[in-house]
């Protein structure tokens, strides 16, 4: 699996390189938005590990510039940021998941693998942010299909936030792991497509827009 690593800290890139195992191969590294865009377009990797903050801009700028030309490239956001607006911005731009940098090497390898397979990767923190963003508000939505989470999706997200893994969630809710994954993917899609009034206000409260 070919991976490009985008982060503006040399030390951190070295750490990730040393930790990633399995059949993950780091084919390129970039430390700025401009370099990353060029590198990803020329290398066409399977997965890009993308820091939310870069020296000359933010991670979502990379996705916005690359995605139209390279729709096959999957992005996994990786950050120390505790600021929900940063994380939601990069997810809304099209990242397939978000993990904190404190993640262990094995878990990161697993997350990269899952993103490459087309799954969404939710860490507890991201699940918390998304639940917050989709907080039950008044139903003023234009497109209720998109703008609300189903009870099941909410339940799955809550378990992720509580620290459960997909397999454990499946066992607990008597679902197949595949079904749990499809719920999670649906939540991600809603987050990326939704024009939800509530989400807009949530973002505005955090000066995201």
């Amino acid at each position, binding site marked *: 699996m070919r991976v490009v690593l985008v982060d503006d800290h040399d030390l951190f890139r070295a750490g990730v390189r040393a930790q990633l195992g399995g059949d993950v191969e780091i084919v390129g590294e970039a430390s700025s938005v401009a370099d990353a865009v060029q590198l990803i377009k020329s290398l066409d990797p399977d997965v890009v590990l993308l820091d939310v903050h870069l020296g000359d801009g933010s991670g979502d700028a990379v996705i916005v510039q690359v995605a139209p030309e390279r729709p096959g490239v999957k992005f996994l956001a990786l950050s120390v940021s*505790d600021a929900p607006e940063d994380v939601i911005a990069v997810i809304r731009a099209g990242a397939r998941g978000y993990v904190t940098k404190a993640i262990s090497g094995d878990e990161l390898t697993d997350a990269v693998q899952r993103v490459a397979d087309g799954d969404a990767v939710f860490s*507890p*923190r991201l699940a*918390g942010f998304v*639940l*917050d963003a989709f*907080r039950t508000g008044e139903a003023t939505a234009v497109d209720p299909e998109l703008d609300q989470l189903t009870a099941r999706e909410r339940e799955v997200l809550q378990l992720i*936030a*509580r*620290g459960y893994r997909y397999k454990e969630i499946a066992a607990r809710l008597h679902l197949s792991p595949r079904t749990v994954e499809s719920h999670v993917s649906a939540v991600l899609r809603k987050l990326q497509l939704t024009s939800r009034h509530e989400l807009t206000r949530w973002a505005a409260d955090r000066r995201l827009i």
Partner: protein
Amino acid sequence: MRIPQVERTRDEAVAAGVCAGIARTLSVDPTFVRLVFALLTFASGAGIVAYVGAWALLPVPGESEPSGRRRVVGIVLLVWSAILATGGLGLSNSVLLPLLVASAGVVLLRRESRLIGLALIVIGIVIFVSNNTRGSATTLLAPGAVAVALIVAGPWAWRLANERARAEERAELAARVHDSVLQTLTLIQKDPSDARRLARRQERELRSWLYPSIASGTLVDAVDRAAAEIEELHGVRVEVVHTGDAPLEERTQALVLAAREAMANAARHSGADEISVFVEPAAVYVRDRGHGFDPEAVAADRRGLSESIRGRMERVGGTAKITTAPGEGTEVELCL
């Protein structure tokens, strides 16, 4: 600050496009500007003089700039119209002349010719005082002097204050980095055995400084602090995730204390090096992936679970549910 460029415009012109151009710059209706010029005409014809002056002075986009002589004529006409207009409004020359001299001084002051500028301001004030020797003069002079002082000293004071604020910010940042990060790094170099705990503590401290929680004294805030204490005491990592928040009162206080006990248990007995805590407005979940235990086998004299967690929750009308099995990790669900 950049002074907006006024240009005459041919598009909406009635005569030479002066009023329309000014209106465009000010984003107002041209009719309004024309009305002002018309009214000024009643002040000894100031409106007409001003119009001709502006016609001479203002450039038309796409045409050559007005020549130097034409500009001088324009400025003279505008000043003349101002004198006419103020005369017409009842202001005497004894106010106008010193004002003009002082204004010229201010303009020069903000360029490089400070001495000449200062001299002109002083001359303006002197003329003003000598022209208005009666008692009313001082009442007029005071606000004028204040205004001049503000125009002159304002930008300078502003810049100074800004620079000072930036310097203070830098100093505070340097002090913060020195007291925390550098100290921690020094400690780790001296004795690497405790690096993990020290690094984690430093991380938490830095985070709470960089991303201060929105409210203090709330449920999330209290759980965060409890988590920090557990990390500090037991050297495990406690990740707190939350959605929503609640004020701290008797019941949420009990929730926090029960959650703290659950975290302490997980840190002491589970063997896991990370604990996940999830906070909702009326519930806290404490999860570890350690070796779990058999709830039946917990000795009856171990008061932590029964008293500090269950009893505490039940007394405030809440529930505590423990899900665990040997090898499966443990989750404590605390709900109000």
